[in-house]
């Protein structure tokens, strides 16, 4: 399913949060932008949790917003960054409750549906653990399980891997990749590496305006001819960092390999840019 956002605008306390923002969301869509860009606001508006001042939202060709709200949110599931719900209940009890609210009252059908979603999020073994006993990553997977019970076609994740340890982050990332096979997914993240791994399309917003929308390779192109690799001595590193935009560094035997973004030619060996380089180059270009 494709989601179209057309001319979305929102002001809060006379401050513009979103300005005539139009996006075409499809596949696994990564929403990037600096803090305060309006990413969470966009996602909450799509999920029907926040109001817009102006604009329209379409699911495929169908208008799903009415007035200042997205109304038909049955097929849209939103998972916030930090959440806690029913901490004293077990995973199974929470999911059972949500299944009943979805209109499933037959206990065997409820158990079957819960089994299926727990299998997907790999929590079958922990079904009788209480929510407050779960780690951050497990709690997020319960969050996904409850969303899947609603059978949404669009899943929205706000900073899904923030604060997770490496192992849990990788597991969560892989889960999102699997879910992307049969859902449209919107992910906002500061971790560009996750976006690079997951997303088939990227939107970059800043101060509520769209800076870029397209394939990851197209974003990387912003840093083409601006990304350089060079080896510097360890003693020069501090001085070098102060003078250049170092995106990545890797310690080698006696030297340090750094990747920088630079407008200067022949400062080092030109290399293929990564998504992070393209994103930073785009932000720099916009700041000029």
């Amino acid at each position, binding site marked *: 399913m494709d989601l179209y956002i057309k001319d979305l605008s929102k002001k809060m306390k006379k401050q513009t949060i979103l300005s005539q923002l139009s996006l075409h969301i499809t596949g696994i869509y990564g929403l990037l932008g600096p803090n305060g860009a309006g990413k969470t606001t966009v996602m909450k508006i799509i999920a029907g949790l926040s109001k817009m001042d102006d604009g329209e939202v379409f699911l495929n060709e169908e208008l799903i917003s009415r007035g200042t709200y997205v109304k038909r949110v049955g097929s849209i599931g939103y998972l916030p960054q930090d*959440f806690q719900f029913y901490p004293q209940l077990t995973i199974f009890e929470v999911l059972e409750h949500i299944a009943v609210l979805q209109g499933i*009252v037959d206990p065997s059908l409820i158990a079957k549906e819960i089994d299926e979603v727990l299998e997907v999020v790999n929590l079958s073994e922990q079904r009788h653990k209480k929510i407050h006993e779960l780690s951050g990553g497990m709690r997020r997977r319960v969050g996904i399980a409850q969303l899947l019970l609603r059978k949404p076609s669009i899943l929205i994740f706000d900073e899904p891997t923030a604060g997770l340890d490496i192992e849990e982050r990788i597991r969560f990332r892989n889960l999102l990749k699997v879910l992307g096979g049969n859902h449209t997914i919107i992910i906002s993240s500061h971790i560009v590496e996750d976006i690079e791994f997951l997303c088939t399309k990227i939107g970059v917003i800043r101060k509520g305006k769209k800076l870029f929308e397209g394939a990851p390779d197209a974003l990387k192109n912003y840093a083409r001819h601006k990304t350089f690799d060079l080896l510097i001595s360890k003693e020069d590193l501090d001085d070098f960092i102060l003078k250049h935009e170092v995106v990545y560094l890797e310690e080698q035997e006696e030297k340090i390999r750094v990747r920088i973004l630079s407008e200067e030619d022949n400062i080092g060996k030109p290399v293929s840019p990564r998504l992070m380089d393209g994103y930073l180059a785009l932000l720099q270009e916009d700041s000029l």
Partner: protein
Amino acid sequence: MKKISYLFKFDLKLQQFFFFLPFIAYALAIVCIYISPDENRDYIFFQVLAVSFCGVHLLLHYSYLFEEGASEILLPYYRQTAWLDLLRYGLVDGLCIAIVFCFVDPFFHTPQVVAHTILLALCYFLGSSALLMIIKNLEITISCILVYTIMEIGTQGSFMPWPHIFFFVYPYVDLWVRLTYISLVIGLILAIGIISRFYITRK
């Protein structure tokens, strides 16, 4: 029916002892009314011990929305069952209030008192949840309701000219009585507005 019965069981599982708190208060109201030698006090016991507890179930039900970050997860589900929740607790608490009212001296069974009971019960039923939706904290909300209720009882509705909502001295005929009705109607309208706005805009 299956869904309603399940929802009650779920609330019981979540709220545990607190689920029974209003029922204990209703029972206590009946006991106080029954053993009180002064039938003039029946309506006071009824208002304080029964009516003022009729919003507790709904208040506890909504309180889970205001745990850290829970509202964005739970709101879609609460929206789905909003009418059902109001209806099921409206019926349960309304029925209990009606039963307790039967124990109040028949002297009070007048249209004027019945109208006051209905308005007061609705005010507590919806007003407490509306207050929670503004304050977003169960403990502070309960404290506000308790302080207001206790101050009203302690001063028999005579402390400061703020909106008074209880009846203390029968016959209830003077200007203050009319103001009490006006206060209740205004409170009720505000509560309905706040709850509707919360469900639409989550503010």
